[in-house]
């Protein structure tokens, strides 16, 4: 059984911080189909539309009938561990620094043989396993063989922890802790074992219901942070930037207008200032230190979480300016992902449907509860996914968008 992770000792300031290395990140284009599945936490393999054959590794044609009509489909992840090994030598720096490293050869019940990273709680072959598609530190999909049922402390397995961004023993900055979502996020991170949670508040004199309760949590430290003010962002980064392992950007401004519902651009500008430029200010101030600490021992810098919106993919006209600001933030988050991925830091983008808060008062249910949204973020960090669509509305919009973005545009403009 996995040894529970011990609380890491305080960092020795005399020692050099190791520079981050990455596992090999090159993939073919068909191989990236696995990464697309891993990004959303699904286990998908190539299935042939014509003969039904399932295949792995990914190919350009069906190995059975030569059809090129292949599609990625959710697949049974159960299998049998046929053989296992422990590597004591590697040709790659990333693994060399982490030896010994367990690997297994798994025969999926679906009928393919898979080379996989092997969790410590899986006994020697033969043994039953389930495979998970994880994103590794290079941000690419890899197969990880896990025990068939969850085991105590299994997330603390050193190899699995290299694939995930588990908040346990990590220091987190939640950029706005006063909103309902921000508060839920702080509570969820505290229960997930975060070591310290800095909670930003832009206007300390405003008392928001519930916010006071957070102060009772021993992990919580309130910090002044106004994401619309470059100086405020830089001051905080100067103070704690070298210690933050996970940034959770919950700061957002949400108003409920389209183009013709309100004259002028003041509200739209304010939304952009928080939702888009706020992310840019934060990324410029906190990004470099995060990149530099991506291999800093057990509590290394690992992740950046952006609270976006499903409206970032397709405008919700009733909240049109908000949608536009989230689309801008979504685009910037892709840029941030490209810039921090070479250090092994993951950008987790969260695309909820309407949250059950005051700004969505007039929208009919279902609406995602702030606590459910926060739980989805913690789950994503623990399981190492990077695109999160929490709640039924988000899931449905995402499916519709994947299926046909144009159709979704018309559906939404016709009333959702």
């Amino acid at each position, binding site marked *: 059984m996995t040894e529970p992770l011990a609380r890491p000792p305080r960092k020795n300031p005399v020692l050099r911080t190791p520079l981050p290395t990455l*596992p*090999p*990140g*090159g*993939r*073919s284009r*068909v*191989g990236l189909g*696995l990464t697309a599945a891993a990004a959303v936490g699904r286990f998908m393999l190539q299935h042939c539309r014509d003969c039904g054959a399932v295949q*792995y*590794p*990914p190919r350009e044609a069906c*190995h059975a009938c030569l059809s090129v009509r292949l599609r990625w489909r959710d697949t049974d992840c159960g299998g049998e561990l*046929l*053989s*296992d*090994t*422990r*590597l*004591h*030598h*590697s*040709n*790659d720096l*990333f*693994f060399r620094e982490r030896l010994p*490293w367990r*690997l*297994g*050869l798994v*025969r999926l019940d679906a009928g393919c*043989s*898979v*080379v*996989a*990273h092997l969790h410590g709680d899986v006994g020697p*072959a033969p043994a039953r396993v389930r495979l998970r598609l994880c994103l*590794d530190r*290079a941000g*690419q999909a*890899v*197969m990880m063989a896990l025990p068939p049922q969850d085991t105590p402390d299994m997330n603390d397995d050193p190899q699995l922890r290299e694939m995930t961004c588990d908040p346990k023993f990590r220091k987190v900055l939640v950029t706005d802790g006063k909103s309902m979502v921000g508060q839920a996020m702080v509570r969820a991170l505290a229960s997930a074992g975060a070591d310290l949670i800095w909670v930003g508040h832009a206007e300390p004199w405003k008392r928001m219901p519930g916010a006071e309760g957070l102060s009772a949590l021993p992990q919580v430290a309130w910090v002044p942070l106004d994401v619309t003010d470059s100086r405020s962002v830089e001051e905080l980064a100067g103070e704690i930037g070298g210690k933050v392992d996970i940034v959770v950007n919950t700061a957002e401004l949400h108003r409920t207008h389209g183009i013709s519902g309100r004259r002028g651009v003041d509200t739209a500008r304010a939304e952009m200032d928080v939702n888009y430029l706020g992310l840019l200010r934060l990324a410029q101030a906190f990004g470099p230190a995060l990149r530099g600490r991506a291999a800093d021992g057990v509590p290394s810098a690992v992740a950046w979480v952006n609270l976006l919106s499903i409206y970032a993919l397709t405008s919700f006209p009733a909240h049109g300016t908000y949608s536009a600001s989230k689309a801008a933030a979504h685009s910037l988050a892709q840029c941030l992902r490209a810039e921090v991925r070479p250090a092994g830091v993951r950008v987790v983008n969260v695309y909820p449907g309407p949250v059950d808060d005051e700004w969505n008062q007039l929208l009919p249910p279902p609406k995602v509860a702030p606590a459910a949204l926060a739980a989805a973020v913690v789950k994503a960090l623990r399981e190492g996914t990077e695109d999160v669509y929490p709640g039924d509305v988000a899931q449905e919009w995402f499916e519709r968008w994947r299926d046909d973005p144009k159709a979704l545009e018309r559906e939404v403009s016709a009333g959702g």
Partner: protein
Amino acid sequence: MTRPHRMSYEDIAVTVPFTVPYERFSIRGAHWFVGRALDGLIREAGLPKQSIEGLVVSSFTLAPDTAVGVTQHLGLSPRWLDHVPTGGASGLMALRRAARAVQSGDADIVACIGADTNHVDSFRQSLGSFSQFARDATYPYGSGGPNSIFAFITAHYMQAYGATREDFGKLCIAQRENARRNENALLRKPLTMAEYLGARPIADPLRLFDCVMPCAGAEAFLVMTVQRARELHLPHATLLGAIERHNAYADDPIFVRGGWAVDAAELYAQAGLQATDIDFVQLYDDYPVIVTIQFEDLGFCAKGEGPAFVRSNSMTHDGSFPTNTSGGQLSAGQAGAAGGFLGINEAVRQLTGAAGSRAVSNARVGLVSGFGMVTYDRCLCTGAAILAAASA
């Protein structure tokens, strides 16, 4: 059950086995080793360069060139050319293609060359780009290269058929004994069972002496008709039969048998021989488990009896079942694609009285195998040939 229309190889001679001495690392390019090999072939054969009408080259480190680049690099103008980039199976495949080219009259004399250089970092650099499946589905998993895959195969074989570390140790130690009589072998210090069992772990259950040492070097030979070899007074072996097979048993969940098992009966039928007629074997030895599996797949014992076969035989050149009498790649070193030619050259030496102090006594017939290309979870290419001493 020989295939009725498959043409015999019986008029084919394999001659002038030439080795460019192995070096652990070299600062030279692969073209240097190809050049030394070609020079050695024509010098030892006493032929002008222009008489090489056919050329087949195997190399991992020749990039960006292929065989055609070699023609301009070395000033050849062949009328038949092939490039066989299949590593451990390349020697057998080169031999088969060259033999058919000679028989059809497309070339009179074909030079077959396996050559590679080895820079300090070239092995590591070759791994990640070895195949699309390696890039997508094995190299990102610990980057152990073929060691990880053969660790799976070895561990599974041990569990399924009761092989022990000592069985594999016995093979490695016998090959080391053979290597002590091969001055080109890089590893010639005697190996004890304690050293074998206690060596540095690489990928459980594999340890250091289960793995070949990558090096630089070349192996080359000429293929021509028996009649031509006689005219040139070249000592030669004749080719009695040859097979190859790719991606055999693709549905086996893990490698336990190779393509040899598909075609071994055809090989013996073509040669008009049985397994019991073979005087020695040169079996592709990237890892000792593969030698054991070939004892089974090539018909020397039944599937699963490999470990018992190892225990009841001695594999030295003077033993009851002489195996890899040059020391094999495990002791001579693996000079890239030349590793796929090593067994052919050693067999020709054994059959032409050129094996010196490691000669197998009264060797008349030898079997050579090849095995190459771990594109994903197993080696895809298998080949084998039966060579015989030329009748006087």
